[in-house]
């Protein structure tokens, strides 16, 4: 379902009516809208999941209600919609002493960063917006745009708490890019390609062909990548940039309404991106765990979404279990534990491959 495919399909359908340039733009817009719709629906689902999972972990019942009206629907199903509506209808406040252009730019930038990562995520055997030959590299690259917008938000708010949040996020995200990237190198070494679809195709043929079970070093690489990914998405125990009990709300202190919703949305979108990369890189992507069992292209989407969803659930689960790290400890964990581990993994995998697989 790539852009090329849509372009060819549309040009076959509308040949002669519209110029090919306009057709190209249209065929690019269609997947964009699809992704946007997907993000919105997914965010509503995952917000509901977060509410419910956290409530059950805390022995509460979470959003509940008897019906539509003043209540939040059966089992509180309408709660995320109500949340979204509330954020949409809230007054848009820009502090008078804020740097206005940057203040307005920051939420869009973070959302764009999350949004354009989606185009290289393979949802199925043929469902990918653009099958880039450097897909995994591209996702890592554009994922770092988030840090720019967080610094922008922290600086432009003209608030000391926001500034702290922005500076913390800069240090944190830049640091954790490194172990995450080094862990993905393991995947690239094994698969021998940067292309997402090729990485997944390398893992065909049942659960034991997945990269995570390839050799004893890869599970460690997976754990390192996953934890670094949590740190990159600013979630507890790594939510220092917005730690609510220290920095009020960190970089998002001065944001309200729709602008705040963009930060919120892109946090959840980023969670999906990093989980999808983990699922594609380590857990076999859209392959079924058992070869031949529910292993058609249509089921591929099911497997991909489920693997990603499981990883997102683990993120939520971790968030509601652990306290938060301190700034220097965060850096310690990154540079003194994860970086050596990631490097050892690369060597280990390389040696293992040479000794056992050749």
């Amino acid at each position, binding site marked *: 379902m790539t852009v090329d495919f849509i372009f060819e399909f549309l040009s076959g359908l509308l040949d002669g009516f519209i110029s090919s340039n306009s057709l190209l733009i249209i065929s690019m817009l269609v997947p964009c809208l699809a992704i946007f719709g997907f993000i919105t629906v997914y965010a509503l689902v995952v917000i509901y999941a977060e509410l419910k999972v*956290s409530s059950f*972990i*805390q*022995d*509460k019942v979470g959003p509940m209600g008897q019906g539509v009206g003043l209540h939040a629907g059966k089992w509180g199903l309408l709660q995320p919609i109500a949340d979204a509506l509330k954020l949409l209808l809230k007054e848009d406040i820009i502090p008078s002493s804020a740097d206005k252009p940057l203040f307005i730019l920051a939420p869009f930038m973070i959302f764009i960063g999350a949004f354009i990562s989606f185009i290289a995520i393979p949802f199925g055997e043929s469902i990918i917006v653009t099958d880039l030959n450097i897909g995994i590299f591209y996702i890592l690259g554009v994922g770092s745009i988030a840090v720019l917008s967080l610094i922008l938000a922290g600086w432009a708010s003209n608030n*000391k708490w926001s500034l*702290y949040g922005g500076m913390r996020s800069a240090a944190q995200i830049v640091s954790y890019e490194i172990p995450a990237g080094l862990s993905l190198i393991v995947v690239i070494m094994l698969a021998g390609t940067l292309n997402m679809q090729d990485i997944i195709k390398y893992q065909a043929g049942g659960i034991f062909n997945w990269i995570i079970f390839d050799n004893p070093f890869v599970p460690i690489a997976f754990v390192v990548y996953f934890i670094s990914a949590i740190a990159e998405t600013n979630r*507890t*125990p790594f*939510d220092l940039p917005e*730690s*609510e*009990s*220290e920095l*009020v709300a960190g970089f998002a202190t001065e944001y309200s309404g729709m602008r705040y919703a963009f930060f919120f949305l892109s946090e959840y979108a980023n969670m999906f991106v990093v989980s999808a990369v983990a699922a594609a890189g380590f857990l076999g992507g859209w392959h079924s765990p058992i070869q031949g069992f529910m292993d058609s292209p249509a089921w591929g989407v099911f497997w991909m979404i489920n693997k990603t969803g499981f990883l997102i659930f683990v993120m939520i689960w971790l968030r*509601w*279990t*652990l*306290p*938060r*790290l*301190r*700034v*220097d*400890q965060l850096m310690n964990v990154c540079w003194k534990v994860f970086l050596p581990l990631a490097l050892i993994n690369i060597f280990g995998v390389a040696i293992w491959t040479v000794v056992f697989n050749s």
Partner: protein
Amino acid sequence: MGVVHGQEMVLNIGPQHPATHGVLRLQVKTDGEVISEITPYLGYLHRCFEKHCENVSYEQVIPFTDRCDYLASMTMNFGYVVAMEQLMDIKVNDRVEYIRVIMAELQRIASHLLATGVFGLDLGAFTPFLHMLRDRERIIDLFEMTCGARLLYNYMWVGGLSHDLPKGFVEATLKFLDYFEPKIDEFENLLGHNKIFVERTADIGIMPAEVAINYGVTGPNLRASGVNWDLRKDNPYSVYSKLDFNVPIGKGIKGTVGDSWDRFYVRLQEIRESVKIVRQAIDQLPKDGDVHQSMPKKIRPPKGSIYSRTESPRGDLGYYIESDGSDTPYRLKMRSPAFTALGVLNEIAGGWLMSDVLAILGSLDIVLGEIDR
């Protein structure tokens, strides 16, 4: 390691801030994340407790003591009535004493649950906080059963209690304790031994014993510094001398004696001890005895003054009462434990990182209602 010093920035933590446990303003000087000096500004919650007391009669003071430490109202009542009974030389019967002890210890459990839970919340752990609130809720249900109120009880009166225990209270309490005891272990495993929590609290905010005594820090904070000082043991009031319990002190299991983790752990241990005390007190509770037996018709203490101390969940709670023979106090001063505990903050928290300062503040377990009075 080379340290780069920049220009100092003045930052106001509070009055409205999630981690200040009320309305407290800490003016801090920061250099990056490092905080060099902390100046607390109090009084945002000042309700003229002492001025009020000079204008109301002795029994009307009790509802005001409730509102000073709203998380441990029973023990605030307890301290006041103990002081008044010493001043008026009233001896109450054993049933009253035991009921008071049961209530005070249940209140201590509730207060410590909130203190440790909120401490976790300050460090970002949300779940233990709500688990602890869940169990505090059950204790509050017991209080509601007894006196109808959930937070501000006005239950202990000079020379007695406002009500006797209701039917079924003892059974309900024992049922609660049976349910609650395994939960303490769970709290300990979920929060206390978590590596991140240990890293955040052990060796942080160390308060040596001399500093603690010099700054007048009392209660669990002092005991965490390794000083074995508990008024229930060392200057027993009520029937504490007839009960058997240990005084947990900080041993520096995860770090140094007197660090934040010790303060947390001492509170957790005190919850266990309080459970033990409640069990014993229920065991020994006399079956009969009128709770209004020794209540004076009109409270007119003789001329004189008294300084009496009791052990509230936060430390030594002192009442200085001066009577001029009339039915209103001439002067009533409350020496609140959290007031002195906050005073030590600059001493032990200066020079730490921002996150640590808020963790230390959380570990001191302050209640602003009691500080500002």
